[in-house]
């Protein structure tokens, strides 16, 4: 390869970032343009503001989002703090792929089956309590939304722990962490204090994006809110979803306005929290550095955290077991613990849809590969400080309700003439997958020590060889994890698949959701289980690829 003149290379390299940025932003901007245009309509806003459900629904959404984000963050940090360095942590990290692979909707259905008034727990208690009919207690669809908060927390804690683990798995991190803890211990600080004052202040900024994703997700989530959330009013995301899917275009515009209102509220609160965090830095610094040595009962904390982690894994196990049980339950009257009649109908329906597995996997592989390529290209061509510029585009996809984005993508695909084709589907899935891949990958990728690459270059390796032989092998674990996240995101897409694919390309999820619209519980449970299997396999593969102790560079 002949070397081009240096100046040209430099200018070319300086503009290289335009490629991933354009590839990523162009379809998204087109889709959002179409989608958001609907929401900028004075009539729609006045109807929205006049709707008596709007304000209570918005308040409910913010309450659910704040409570679930705060609880999930607190729980994840407490678990990571107390369990770091223990065998329990290793076991928990091994279990995470399985927990993450359970799709949100499937988890919500299973959790509902566990805790609803006619659910398994109530049936266990019924003989003791003397219930012949399910108790008249709103354990799901409760007006405060706490069933939804609980489900979100249970689903988001593994996601946050996964991010923490991905950080710690990076080459050299474990040793650095241990050194800091030892230094703190030598200076007389309890473990917990060392974490709170030294380690988390370093780690938290790298968790900012995952936390923002959790907050955005908890506000925009529709499927879980439909299964577990309040109904009078429902969350604003559910209201927007109902309006956007209505056959009446006026209702669609009101839905688009509601979706924009939700996105604005989400962004506003996130910005306020970020500002407050920054403003409180001097106060925090003065508290952390005043030199006191508070006593902390680390052992008790460890035992409690170990129990919590075991409880978390048990809830997932119970949910999955119950889904399996219910998928073969026919007639099953309260308060009997076992069904009066069993049925295999749901699994015949699954068998009849088996042909969709291939397309589901192909689409997920293609779109997460493209998403990974885009994310890596973005980070290779831009400095870290530019990530803030990408944030709006990234969070637009996480924030904007799926219906709105799917509608916009669909219209873009119509214009491009790729609707109803695999190429269009691949594009639509990539637009949804890429932001999650970027969010999952950025912390590890950005904090990769540049001296490794500098050393390799100094030793005469080219840029490509440095990436292939040094940087990417070292980052194999986070790369594989991000790929798995993208895969799981692709598998769960319903609306983009239906709209852009013109309904002609059936995936596991379109089969599951169209069948679930009939409200048959055994079918919903069976498909929920099957939907969890594909991503579980990929997460397990990612965990195996990125397992600690695997020699970088593939064992040469």
């Amino acid at each position: 390869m002949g070397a081009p003149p240096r100046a040209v290379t430099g200018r070319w390299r300086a503009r290289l970032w335009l490629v991933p940025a354009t590839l990523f932003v162009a379809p998204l901007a087109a889709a959002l343009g179409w989608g958001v245009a609907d929401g900028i309509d004075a009539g729609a806003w006045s109807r929205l503001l006049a709707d008596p459900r709007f304000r209570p629904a918005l308040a409910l959404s913010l309450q659910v989002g704040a409570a679930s984000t705060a609880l999930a963050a607190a729980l994840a940090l407490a678990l990571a703090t107390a369990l770091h360095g223990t065998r329990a942590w290793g076991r928990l990290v091994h279990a995470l792929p399985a927990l993450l692979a359970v799709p949100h909707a499937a988890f919500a259905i299973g959790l509902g089956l566990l805790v609803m008034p006619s659910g398994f727990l109530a049936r266990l208690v019924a003989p003791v309590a003397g219930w012949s009919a399910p108790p008249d207690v709103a354990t799901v669809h409760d007006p405060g939304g706490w069933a939804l908060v609980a489900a979100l927390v249970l689903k988001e804690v593994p996601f946050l722990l996964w991010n923490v683990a991905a950080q710690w798995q990076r080459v050299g991190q474990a040793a650095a962490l241990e050194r800091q803890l030892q230094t703190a211990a030598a200076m007389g600080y309890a473990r917990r204090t060392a974490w709170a004052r030294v380690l988390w202040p370093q780690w938290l900024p790298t968790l900012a994006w995952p936390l923002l994703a959790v907050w955005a997700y908890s506000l925009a989530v529709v499927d879980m809110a439909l299964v577990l959330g309040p109904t009078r009013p429902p969350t604003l995301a559910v209201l927007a979803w109902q309006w956007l899917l209505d056959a009446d275009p006026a209702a669609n515009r009101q839905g688009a306005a509601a979706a924009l209102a939700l996105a604005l509220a989400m962004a506003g609160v996130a910005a306020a929290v970020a500002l407050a965090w920054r403003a409180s830095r001097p106060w925090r610094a003065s508290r952390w550095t005043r030199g006191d040595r508070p006593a902390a009962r680390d052992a008790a904390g460890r035992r409690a955290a170990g129990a919590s982690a075991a409880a978390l894994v048990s809830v997932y196990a119970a949910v999955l077991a119950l889904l399996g049980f219910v998928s073969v339950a026919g007639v099953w009257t309260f308060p009997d613990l076992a069904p009066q009649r069993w049925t295999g109908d749901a699994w015949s329906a699954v068998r009849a849809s088996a042909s969709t597995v291939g397309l589901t996997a192909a689409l997920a592989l293609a779109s997460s590969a493209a998403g990974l390529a885009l994310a890596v290209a973005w980070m290779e061509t831009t400095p870290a400080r530019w990530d803030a510029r990408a944030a709006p585009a990234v969070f637009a996809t996480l924030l904007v309700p799926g219906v709105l984005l799917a509608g916009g993508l669909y219209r873009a695909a119509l214009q491009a003439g790729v609707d109803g084709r695999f190429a269009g589907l691949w594009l639509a899935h990539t637009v949804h997958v890429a932001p999650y891949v970027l969010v999952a990958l950025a912390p590890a990728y950005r904090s990769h020590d540049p001296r490794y690459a500098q050393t390799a270059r100094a030793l005469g390796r080219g840029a490509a060889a440095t990436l292939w032989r040094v940087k990417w092998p070292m980052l194999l674990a986070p790369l594989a994890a991000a790929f798995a996240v993208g895969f799981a995101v692709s598998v769960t897409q319903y609306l983009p698949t239906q709209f852009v694919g013109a309904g002609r390309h059936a995936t596991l999820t379109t089969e599951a959701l169209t069948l679930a619209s009939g409200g048959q519980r055994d079918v919903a449970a069976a498909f929920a289980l099957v939907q969890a299997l594909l991503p579980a396999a990929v997460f397990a593969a990612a965990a195996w690829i990125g397992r600690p102790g695997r020699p970088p560079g593939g064992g040469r």
Partner: protein
Amino acid sequence: MPHDRLRRRLIASALAGPLLARAAAGDWPAIQRAARGQTVWFNAWAGSERINAYLQWAAAEVRERHGVTLRHVKVADTAEAVKRVRAEREAGRLADGSVDMVWINGENFLAMKREQLLFGPFAEALPSYVHVDTAGKPTTRVDFSEPVEGMEAPWGMAQLTFFGDARGVPQPPRSLGALLAFAKQHPGRVTYPRPPDFHGVTFLKQVLLESSADRAPFARPVAPERFAADSAALWSTLEALHPSLWRHGRQFPPNAAAMRQMMADGELLIAFTFNPNEAANEIAAKRLPATVVSWQHAAGTIGNTHFLAIPFNARAKAGAQVVIDFLLSPRAQARKADIAHWGDPTVLAVERLAPAERALFERAPAPGTVAQPAPVLPEPHASWVEAIEREWARRHGQ
């Protein structure tokens, strides 16, 4: 200007529609010839594996008989297909659309008809249409008080039907008054889906018709100044009913499927449906015990029809007409009415069929079917739906 071009093309296609339909009326063999080799993408709600299996059977039949490939595009909500056709027109795709045929009725039909998103009229020119019971089943020609005018072909019948386990409901309440008394006797064990859910609104309409002495106003558009007086009986009945409902009428299940599941679990004693054979279906599918019975209010319950339509930009219009004609044939309608397959009541006048075809419809009564069929009450005028929804949301919705 693209907009002008679009408008001109729209006018052209609107003009071409009736011309094509008239050609259809005259020349059925030509349509059959054109249909051969076509692929018909049928967008249909797919929430029941039994319905999906029925469509697979129909696909095999039309391939063998007419050389048409029928592909079921599974949708969770018909509005998805309506939105796709609308978006295609906005994008200027006036031919080669992605939807060849759609299962539809009510507000989705109204939207597509008013926005001229439908091909037709075609329905009354289909050879099988002669057997449709337009006199005995007037809802085959008026869809939620919107005249059908041949823009969709009737496919199946629906009527509001209650069901419950005879062990918990030994004497089914066969009137609104009896239902009210039953709810008071069994507090917390009766409810209805939360409006604007379709079944919830249907329940409100049933209460409106059954509690009002004079039903004449409901056949006409809502008169805003008379709405309070005309609907007073509905709201006072709900005031009486709500305290005895599940969760004291402060919460409602999201849809009829959830209500059915709650009834199956024993949380509720009574559920209702628009398919008179739903309980029988669910018994056959082992999801309900064989002791479940179905009934309708003796003085009649609300009924309507569901239809098949062809979008204006369908690629396989001939193929779609051939498929719809087959689905209207006595053979296809008899299999659809059979509880072993689907259990959807026929739109045909069975008594007018030839004896051999009539025999296809004769079957021993299955457990769970309606023992004493009641008359069908026509839907109130479509304008009542929104008025009732809005007033319900104001009184009970928050």
